[in-house]
């Protein structure tokens, strides 16, 4: 660049005359005089090891798009992998709204200037509350594993007990996040995660084992529906009842897109629900589409008081009939009370709550019913076709929502080999379970949502048949 002044489209005051005018007003000869606040010994004297600028918008676009084009997307190929991040259809209106400059660029603006953001948040909470059958929904944060761990910590604070019970087939990835949040067990404030067994035939939890492990040191019993392995957990009400018998809380981890057809956690007796809103209108973004929610009963104020996330309440204004939305009990959060707050909150996934609000409003009760029915029908159709392939076996219960375990052990091939060959058919195969669940042999977790139709599924089956032969 040499001596040419650096004037950039994003930096209006880089125009030398403007800079000079401002310096003159301050009585300074250069900005360097301000930087004198940083002592010489702490000043960086070198040049940043960063390539020189690609200045024009056209050339920058070409460069970055060129890198992105090295990716193969789930639009280029068909994708039958879920395992915590699922490919559902995103209605165009969802993208239209969340790409609005006002929502994309907003942050912590006040109650009035960013009113629309707050109203949308309240509507998101209200609609998710209807799906879950809970009166209280908090402002979401990072993802499912994170909110599950936070729910455990919340239960610990409410009950004063320091152990939680989780099913042994909980998602291993979520479990890693939970463990980080629950602290190493040697620490005095740790929350201890203990496991109860699951039935290798049905995929459901083992109630007898749960009952054997429940005692009055247990703060909460956690279960997932559908389970990580895709099966529908039919015993939620019984799990909640057993937990309550021992004075423990019942925490359900839920995929909310199932709730047009499946019984909601509120109706099953859960005290807290958590899960991920990614299926509700988020593109996958390589996992960046995830966002975790916490919902709970509101009969006992202890739940709201111990909730670690921001809570928003509907309010009124001086004009009758006019609504506003305000943050409730802000003192309770880390923003209000630093290390005396409940865990912490921070910038996480606000735009996704707006996407999910639009999604829920577009879908309505009928949309949720239909998407649930289509997921069930098409995933079972896929399981049927795959199960007919020699050496391929469908494992666990016949009751699943969109994901199911496909065991390739008898084909003599590993899941890794099969998935690599499926790439040649422009297909992303299921999640390899062979290291997470060795007892399932060479199994993969397949996912079929409403996104893929009969013809797609038949193409998958024929490709799997070819690569396993």
């Amino acid at each position, binding site marked *: 660049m040499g001596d040419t002044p650096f004037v950039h489209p*994003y930096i209006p005051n880089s125009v030398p005359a403007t800079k000079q005018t401002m310096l003159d007003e301050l009585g300074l000869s250069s900005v360097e005089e301000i930087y004198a606040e940083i002592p010489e010994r702490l000043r960086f004297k070198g040049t940043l090891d960063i*390539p020189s600028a690609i200045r024009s918008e056209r050339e920058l676009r070409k460069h970055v798009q060129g890198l992105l084009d090295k990716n193969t997307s789930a639009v280029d190929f068909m994708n039958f992998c879920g395992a915590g991040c699922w490919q559902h259809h995103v209605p165009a209106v969802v993208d239209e709204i969340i790409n609005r400059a*006002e929502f994309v660029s907003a942050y912590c603006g*006040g109650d009035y200037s960013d009113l629309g953001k707050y109203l949308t948040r309240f509507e998101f909470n209200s609609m998710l509350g209807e799906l879950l059958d809970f009166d209280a929904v908090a402002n979401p944060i990072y993802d499912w594993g994170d909110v599950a761990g936070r729910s455990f910590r919340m239960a610990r604070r409410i009950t004063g007990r320091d152990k939680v019970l989780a099913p042994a087939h909980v998602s291993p990835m979520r479990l890693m996040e939970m463990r980080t949040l629950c602290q190493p067990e040697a620490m005095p404030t740790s929350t201890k995660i203990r496991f109860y067994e699951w039935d290798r035939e049905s995929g459901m939890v083992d109630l007898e084992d749960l009952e054997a492990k429940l005692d009055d040191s247990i703060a909460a019993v956690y279960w997932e529906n559908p389970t990580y392995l895709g099966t529908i957990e039919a015993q939620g009400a019984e799990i909640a009842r057993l937990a309550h018998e021992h004075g423990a809380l019942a925490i359900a981890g839920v995929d909310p897109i199932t709730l047009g057809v499946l*019984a909601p956690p509120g109706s099953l007796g859960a005290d807290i629900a958590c899960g991920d809103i990614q299926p509700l209108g988020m593109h996958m973004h390589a996992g960046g589409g995830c966002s975790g929610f916490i919902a709970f009963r509101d009969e006992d104020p202890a739940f*709201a008081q111990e909730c670690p996330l921001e809570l928003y309440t509907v309010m*009124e204004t001086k004009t009758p009939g006019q609504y506003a939305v305000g943050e409730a009990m802000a003192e309770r959060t880390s923003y209000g009370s630093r290390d005396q707050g409940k865990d912490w909150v921070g910038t996480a996934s606000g735009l996704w709550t707006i996407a999910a609000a639009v999604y829920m409003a577009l879908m309505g*009760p009928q*949309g949720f019913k*239909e998407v649930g029915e289509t997921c069930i029908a098409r995933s079972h159709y896929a399981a049927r076709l795959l199960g007919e392939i020699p050496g391929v076996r469908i494992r666990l219960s016949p009751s699943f929502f969109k994901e199911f375990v496909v065991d390739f052990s008898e084909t003599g091939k590993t899941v890794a080999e099969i998935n690599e060959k499926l790439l040649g058919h422009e297909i992303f195969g299921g999640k390899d379970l062979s290291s997470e669940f060795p007892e399932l042999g060479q199994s993969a977790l397949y996912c079929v949502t409403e996104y893929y139709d009969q013809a797609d599924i038949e193409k998958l089956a024929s490709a799997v048949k070819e690569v396993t032969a």
Partner: protein
Amino acid sequence: MSTHETPHEKVARLAKLRRDGGVLRDYRSPRYDEPFIMEQGTPGERGVFVPLAEEAVTQAVGEAADYIPEGMTRAAAPVLPEMAQYQVMRHYLRYAQMTLGMDLGSDISEGTCTMKYSPKMHEELIRGHKAADLHPWQDEDTMQGLLEIVYETGQYLKSISGMDAFTLQPGGGSHAVYTNACVMRRYFEAKGELDQRDEMITTIFSHPCDAATPKVAGFKVITVMPDDNGYPDLEAFKTAVSEKTVGCMITNPEDTGIYNPQIDKYVEVLHDAGALAFTDQANANGILGFARARDAGFDACHFNLHKTFSSPHGCEGPASGAYMVTDELAPYLPVPVVTKVGDKFHLDYDRPESIGRVRGFLGNWMCVIRAYAWIRNLGPEGLKEVAEISVLNNNYLDNLLMAVKGVSRPYAEGHRRLDQVRYSLQQLKEDTGVGTEALRDRMVDFGIQSYWMSHHPWVVPEPFTPEPCETYSKDDLDEWAAVIKKGSDESYADAAFVLDAPHAQPIDQMLRTEAMEEHDQWAFTWRAYQKKIRGAT
């Protein structure tokens, strides 16, 4: 006024008038009087059709209901809106219009947040299917482009911080700060010192997450207060450090915008005690290319890609925290770590010393794509120019604000601030009864986003904290200062009018503030509001 005024002269004259507090924008927010969506629609209306199972599929497998176990069928349909597509779209478009955000709001206001312009071209990049429709478990061979972007961004951030290794897994700044608490915990666990070391030190002008996240990690938190000059009290800091100290988690410059010139001395005190030092660099905008965390001795630091590196704030996310460490702490980073072998990029899970995970999958890498594009667009000179102009802007604005009656700037008299300033309206409050919250609710009537007051506690009374980063023009700064001056003038002339604000917003002043604290009044959902407030069953 001259009849020969050219358009250019008119603009200049109005700008001068604005700056003098004479003419401000005649602004009215859109006000749609829009009912909640839960109150709208008609039974039977549809917003979108979803695919239905084909006849052949249903014939082959039967009805979906047959696969739902007994007792697990939803008994009553969820009470969601039943509304046609245009009406849903229009509803949320109206909500968008009643959101000022940054793009409309000249958001010099939200200090500590670095509300810079997020280039629109970057949105085109991340909305395409090559970014938006990737599955996180895809084979790494099918996302080499994404991994290359993440890896290279990590290299740039290493250069900017002086650190050796990085992770871009955290989904926000506080999340990266939490990651640090967990990495320090793992470091001392590996050394067998975890039962000895259980205290983390922070300062009151560091972000609340620097106190909250080490607590979540299981540590006791010691908060050092400022000395008379506004710096963390070095003597108090030394007293706090002992063989029980894990480390520190502090900001520099702090929320006040004051750069601590002895920061390396604090780090030395920690290192002498065998403890670690982390600096929260959520607000790195003023020091890009001018000072590096490593050079002050820090073992770890973080950046907010959604602040300093231009990724938009998105109504509070998705966001991305870049967490940077020295080689000594690198083994403890969360898995997977992005590596490069030859020309190929990898996701490395084989890291036995790792803390595990702080987030599922990979991270909010759409934010990383934007940060990469932004860094490449500016280059090394551009990054320094960003820092320099943000510091110049801040001092220029400071000059204007310090001339406003009722405004003061506590601490470090005679020292210039870098990227932001924490001001006090204590004098205005004493003189007129108008405090910082009331002025905040009035300033938005001029089409300017409401300012950030302060993190809690309010050590500076009646605080406000603007941050005029490089995005804003001199005219923008003049206008912003004029709005504050106008608010001050109004307060001295007619405080009741200001206390009754806002006057040009989508709604009038809020009531029922007891709903914020009382169980029988708060309603976190519409159904709760029906039950509690409207008395419906």
